[in-house]
């Protein structure tokens, strides 16, 4: 009873052209996935996936390094794309992205604390590799709680207010990161700097499996709300009068973005502009309704992130470029173009 109308709605409010586009995005995604797996400092043929080679080094690189890394890039890209699209819908503002409400900054602050102070705060290997993700998620959760308190439970009329709180939180987090930078030693500083530029290197199954599970669940939770996000575009009072529990929708979007972005930032560092740019590309391709936009943004976000990671691995071989540099280098000019385009309207 609950799921059937949801699925029917997703199909009903997606036109045939959009279904075709989603199919094309899915094929591109699969193609990029295979390409990303096969190319790099080690090249693999696609056949090795189904027919593993006898060479144990080859197999280890493929299954323990390459595949987890590409999967992590895909899931981080999908979660940034999806949360960007849903936040832009919620705030009814095409410039919204997870960075805007301070969630990324909170996660970054949490992670920076561990990078700089971790060795003196915790005896080595007490939580092992999980300390950094846990700190980042706590940072993101703290920001969400602050938002919740300051907007009185994501109150009925509080969107502008929430954006302003986000600005304050961003400023506060950069002060914290600034202080940590100032007191860090040379090697900590190096770790911090590279972390803020983002990378998918060092992904291991043990870290990414929980992340993949949580991100997938959060997507399955979010995508059925696409119709409600459409109605919200009429304005909060209108959506409420059409039977949308606006407050519940806000909870849903903000909490799911916080979780997925917190996890993504913790595992891959700061990767800018994906959440902002991807939904716009998807809208330009085929329309603005969320039943198409949300899955489209997840697919395109994953595809673009794997491509950016692929570029970061092959551009300056045998070294690696931080992937955040690539996404920002592409995203920043696009952002300017977007602002220019909006000003014309």
């Amino acid at each position, binding site marked *: 009873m609950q799921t059937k109308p949801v699925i029917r709605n997703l199909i009903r409010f997606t036109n045939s052209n959009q279904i075709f586009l989603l199919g094309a995005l899915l094929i591109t995604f699969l193609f990029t996935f295979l390409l990303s797996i096969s190319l790099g400092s080690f090249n693999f043929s696609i056949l090795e996936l189904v027919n593993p080679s006898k060479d144990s080094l080859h197999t280890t690189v493929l299954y323990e390094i390459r595949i987890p890394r590409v999967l992590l890039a895909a899931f981080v890209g999908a979660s940034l794309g999806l949360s960007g699209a849903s936040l832009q819908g919620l705030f009814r503002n095409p410039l919204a992205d997870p960075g805007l409400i301070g969630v990324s900054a909170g996660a970054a602050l949490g992670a920076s604390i561990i990078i700089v102070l971790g060795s003196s705060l915790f005896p080595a290997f007490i939580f092992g590799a999980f300390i950094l993700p846990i700190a980042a998620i706590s940072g993101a959760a703290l920001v969400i709680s602050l938002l919740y308190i300051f907007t009185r439970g994501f109150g009925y009329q509080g969107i502008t207010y929430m954006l302003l709180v986000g600005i304050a939180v961003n400023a506060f987090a950069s002060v914290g990161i600034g202080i940590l930078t100032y007191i860090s030693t040379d090697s900590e500083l190096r770790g911090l700097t590279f972390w803020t530029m983002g990378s998918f290197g060092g992904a291991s199954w043990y870290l990414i499996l929980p992340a993949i599970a949580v991100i997938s669940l959060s997507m399955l939770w979010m995508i059925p709300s696409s119709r409600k996000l459409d109605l919200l575009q009429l304005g909060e009072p*209108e959506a409420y009068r059409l039977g949308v529990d606006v407050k519940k929708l806000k909870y849903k979007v903000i909490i799911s973005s916080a979780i997925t972005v917190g996890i993504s930032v913790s595992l891959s560092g700061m990767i800018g502009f994906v959440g902002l740019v991807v939904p716009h590309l998807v809208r330009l391709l085929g329309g*603005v309704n969320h039943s198409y936009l949300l899955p489209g943004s997840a697919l395109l976000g994953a595809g673009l992130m794997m491509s950016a990671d692929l570029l970061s691995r092959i551009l300056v071989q045998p070294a690696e470029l931080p992937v955040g540099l690539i996404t920002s280098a592409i995203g920043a000019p696009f952002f300017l173009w977007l602002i220019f385009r909006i000003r014309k309207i």
Partner: protein
Amino acid sequence: MSIQASSISWEIDGKKIINNVSLEINHGEVVSIIGPNGAGKSSFLNVLSGDIKPTAGDITFDNVDLKEITIQERSFMRSVMSQSQQIVYDFSVKEIIEMGWLDRGIASYSEDFKYAVMNAAEECSILDILDQKFNTLSGGEQRRVHFARTLIQLWRPSDSKDPRYMFLDEPTANLDIKHEQNLMKLVKEKANEGIGVLLILHDLNLAARYSDKLFIFKEGNLIKSGPPEEVLDKDMLTDVYGLEMNVENDPLRVNYY
């Protein structure tokens, strides 16, 4: 079968916006609220739609307390059109109209879906702009699209006995005189199909011509209510609006310039 609002008061920051107002909307009836700016008309409409909770008084829809009705159920029995906000993304006109189609409506009457949208579009004379982007339309056209959405929200098969109400806050704003008359005729038609209609209007003659009952508001108080020919009185109107007016009978006309 009716909406009963009894002794509604609403105050915000210690300021009384609505003061002890009672009102009734029966099925098939067109009820209009008139009054100067700041009289509390739109606030009253927001209270009736359940957007804001009154500080005192009770509202019942067909003898059920409004508080007991979930927002989904409310959306199935009443539609509201108020001054609408700007829409940021490029939705097409058809997509905007289809937003009036509620989950419950889709589940019950999915076969009639396309027909009903086309029908509403034709009634509001927007059939030829269905595929255009909503944002490129003029103010009056946007208004008609929103009205079509309001109609779709209440659309039922002709044999339906569901209680339905329509609240329209200045529906004729931005419309040219032809579309204004079309819209008012359409409202009257919908009332004849059994929908109870609440209007907020500024044009006194339009209100007099199309309403079964008038409610006159001033500074949050209900000054007078009843059928137009009984209510519209020269001295009372002059006092309420602070503007010299004349009322002619047969046909009923208010002259103020």
